[in-house]
């Protein structure tokens, strides 16, 4: 029938159009580095405000700092960057930095001591979330003109007390220490915001790269700075594309559409190891996975119960199965490679011991709720805990929510148990000691929501004092021992069961050389990469 054949023809044509096979380009250009990463946590690219992992990855490559880590030798600690050298005053309170000559911002303006002072004062004045990293040294909007001063080619900062110099300099290597171009930033100031709005989506630094564009939840594009003082980077462009799924990242990597895949889950890491043309780069990161027990809960506040729960976690089982290659067992609050870190992991799964401890505390049958963030590895840890707790007669209900939902409750001290992750804010032991073991006022009214100990209503007792003492100890080896002691007590008595430390396995194309993810102490560096 005529009509019929014509119809069939139309349909066939449609199918042909729909099913055309398209060859896909399978290699990235030689001077471009293409990275897949979850970057949906970036909410700003102002170094005075940014406080997320993906943000620090971007900003480390844009902004120079007074002192910085050398990606080729992270273990050496902080090294001169925009400051060529520094001296410490007699009383140990004032550090004076001499600026490196001839370094320029992306705008062409020279990097001056004034820019450093401006950047630091800007942090204090804006008072955004990460500002405490600087203000903990006593800088306030009122005193900053006296405490942060410029003289010729030098800039001096004066702290309120004598702190360990290493503590101060370590803090300056954090994202917040990034030096911005005062002239460019102030030219873009709106309503006295010190350029905060403009810097959210633009850059004014002196580092290896400048920001070309940031499309929220989509991509970040960086362009090389040909005048970078350490030499022009080999990669002309760096593109970080937001790709949510691990499987997708792996597919893209294996197909050659990207050079680096940064969020591979353990099963995909195994796959990448066996694939051709790609390899796995593993680095120990600073992030810890822990559970904490709210001390407002009558049963959880008993020391035996706290101990018991620590014996009800299948550290090894998890580490060797679904967390394989992503986390290793670590039961201390200082991540490995940090000053004062220890390697003792005394707890292991022991149901009998846990039962005995529970019996000792007079606990029989307990029902608890754990707040878990909607993320696969945490859900799996949660379910494993559910399983092992049940073996000692404890019913554990999972309350799953988005990060913000669960966090709101945690901050309001409303959860029985929280399954969480903690990443250090700056590469000094105080960053973790100051939150896990330090809680000067445990009352509800204190609202110290930034302190993990407070969130769990835990009065840390003498640990608060010990942490405060460790921070001002000038002798490095004494300081180290002090942290060993704090952690020994903490491990045993605290309501925190630190379980794992993060390993980041990045899948990379085997042509990529010189990529450093930043270890436990800093963020990624792109300027050392070659292909």
């Amino acid at each position, binding site marked *: *029938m*005529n*009509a*019929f054949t*014509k*119809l069939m023809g*139309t*349909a066939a044509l*449609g*199918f042909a159009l*729909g099913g055309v096979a*398209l*060859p*896909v*380009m*399978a290699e*990235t250009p030689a001077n471009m580095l*293409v990275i897949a990463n979850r970057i*949906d946590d970036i*909410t*700003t690219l102002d170094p005075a405000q940014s*406080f*997320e992992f993906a943000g620090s990855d971007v900003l480390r490559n844009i902004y120079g700092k007074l002192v910085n880590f050398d990606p080729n030798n992270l273990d050496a600690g902080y090294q001169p960057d925009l400051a060529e050298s520094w001296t410490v005053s007699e009383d140990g309170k004032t550090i004076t930095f001499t600026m490196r000559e001839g370094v320029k911002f992306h705008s062409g303006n020279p990097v001056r001591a004034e820019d450093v002072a401006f950047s630091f004062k800007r942090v204090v004045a804006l*008072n*955004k*979330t*990460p500002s*405490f990293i600087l203000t903990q040294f006593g800088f306030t909007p009122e005193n900053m003109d006296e405490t942060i001063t410029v003289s010729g080619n030098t800039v001096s900062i004066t702290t309120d007390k004598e702190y360990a110099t290493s503590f101060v300099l370590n803090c300056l290597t954090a994202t917040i220490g990034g030096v911005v171009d005062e002239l460019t930033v102030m030219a873009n100031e709106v309503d006295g915001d010190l350029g905060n709005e403009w810097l959210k*989506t633009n850059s004014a630094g002196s580092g290896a790269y400048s920001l070309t*564009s940031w*499309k*929220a*939840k*989509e*991509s970040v594009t960086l362009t090389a700075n040909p005048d970078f003082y350490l030499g022009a980077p080999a990669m002309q462009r760096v*593109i970080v*594309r*937001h*790709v*949510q*799924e691990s*499987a*997708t990242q792996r*597919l*893209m990597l*294996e*197909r050659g*559409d*990207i050079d680096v895949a940064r969020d591979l889950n353990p099963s995909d890491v195994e796959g990448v190891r066996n694939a051709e043309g790609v390899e796995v780069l593993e680095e120990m990161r600073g992030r810890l996975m822990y559970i904490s027990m709210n001390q407002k809960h009558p049963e959880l506040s008993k020391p035996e119960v706290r101990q018991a729960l620590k014996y009800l976690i299948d550290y090894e089982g998890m580490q060797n199965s679904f967390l394989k290659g992503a986390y290793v067992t670590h039961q201390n609050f200082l991540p490995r490679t940090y000053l004062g870190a220890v390697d003792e992991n005394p707890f292991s799964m022991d149901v009998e011991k846990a039962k005995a401890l529970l019996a000792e505390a007079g606990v029989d049958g307990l029902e608890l709720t754990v707040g878990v963030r909607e993320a696969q590895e945490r859900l799996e840890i949660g379910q494993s805990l559910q399983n092992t707790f049940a073996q000692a007669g404890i019913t554990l209900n999972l309350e799953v929510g*988005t990060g*913000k*939902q669960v*966090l*709101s*409750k945690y901050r309001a001290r409303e959860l029985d148990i929280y399954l969480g992750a903690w990443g250090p*804010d700056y590469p000094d032991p105080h960053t973790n000691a100051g939150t896990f073991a330090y809680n000067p006022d445990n009352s509800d009214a204190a*609202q*110290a*929501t*930034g302190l993990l100990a407070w969130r769990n209503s835990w009065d840390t007792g003498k640990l608060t004092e010990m942490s405060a003492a460790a921070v001002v100890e000038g002798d490095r080896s004494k300081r180290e021992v002090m942290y060993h002691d704090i952690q020994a007590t903490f491990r045993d008595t605290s309501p925190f069961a630190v379980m794992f430390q993060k390993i980041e396995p990045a899948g990379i194309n085997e042509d990529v050389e010189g990529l450093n993810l930043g270890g436990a102490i800093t963020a990624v560096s792109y300027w050392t990469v070659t292909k």
Partner: protein
Amino acid sequence: MSSTHYNPKRQPRLPLPSWLKGTLVTLASISVTMLGLLFVTFFIGRVMPIEPVLAVVGERATQEQYHAAYLELGLDKPLIVQFSYYVWDVLHGDFGMSLLTARPVADDIGRVFPATMELATIGITIGIVLGVPLGVIAAVRRGSWIDQIARVVALVGYSMPIFWLGLMGLLLFYGVLGWVGGPGRQGIFYEDMIPSVTGMILVDSALARDWGAFRDAFSHIILPASLLGYYSLAYISRMTRSFMLEQLSAEYVTTARVKGMSEWAVIWRHAFRNIRVQLITVIALSYANLLEGSVLTEIIFSWPGIGNYLTTALLSADMNAVLGATVVVGLIFICLNIFSDLLYKIFDPRSK
């Protein structure tokens, strides 16, 4: 009328003595619906136990910083005051700033909506090009094997979990066979290479005469678009079939056949012509559904469209973004509805 079950048309509720009155009534009902839409969204957003403040200041904020941000967002004011401020701003074309992207919501929507539109348009095109002929054939050869196949194709389309089919499709056509581009709208090395004019990459790369980029964008869009196309195909072909069946059993068709008119002419010049309006309603409805953002498809294919935008905004309590996107989506839905109502009034003799 037999199509009542499927199209969301509303019966005229007031007699329409004049053209003007009709327009006024329509406008009034649009504004009431929009206002209601806004209010419900606003209310949902406020009772949600997610803290917008935390999204702004981050986990480590001190109570003081937290409070400053709280005041800055105006959260201390009564709900109804917040709502009226918001409506006032929207009436002045200001949708506010998104907390998460640090940009004006209007800009964000201007960026994500073309992405969805591009995907939906290609999807619906596939749906029409394949679905309409399939439906017509199925009706003409009712009961034959081709009718059965068309039925199975459609029912399978209705029954498939799209997120699963999407995952499998990506695995097969991208991962194993390498026939299509991966997730996202374009290959990463074309990022920021094409000047954005319309925001639709296919159109922009054609305008820039960059055929490499065009091919690349096409290879990325074809898989998700085919998936959406299949879904609209299922719906469109079923509807076409049932409309056609109704027409083919009508008396005039028999008369035409008796008069010796060719089958082709009977089908296309008579029967098909009569179902055009109903069909357009169905297509408009499916198009509206695709434009609303196929959340799951966009998530699986990392497609930076409005569905994706709305979902992430919702889960982080980025209320300005949620409200802005809901207004846009609601407007589209309402406009397409009015459009098909109008078509009815113009073309359907029965409603005159």
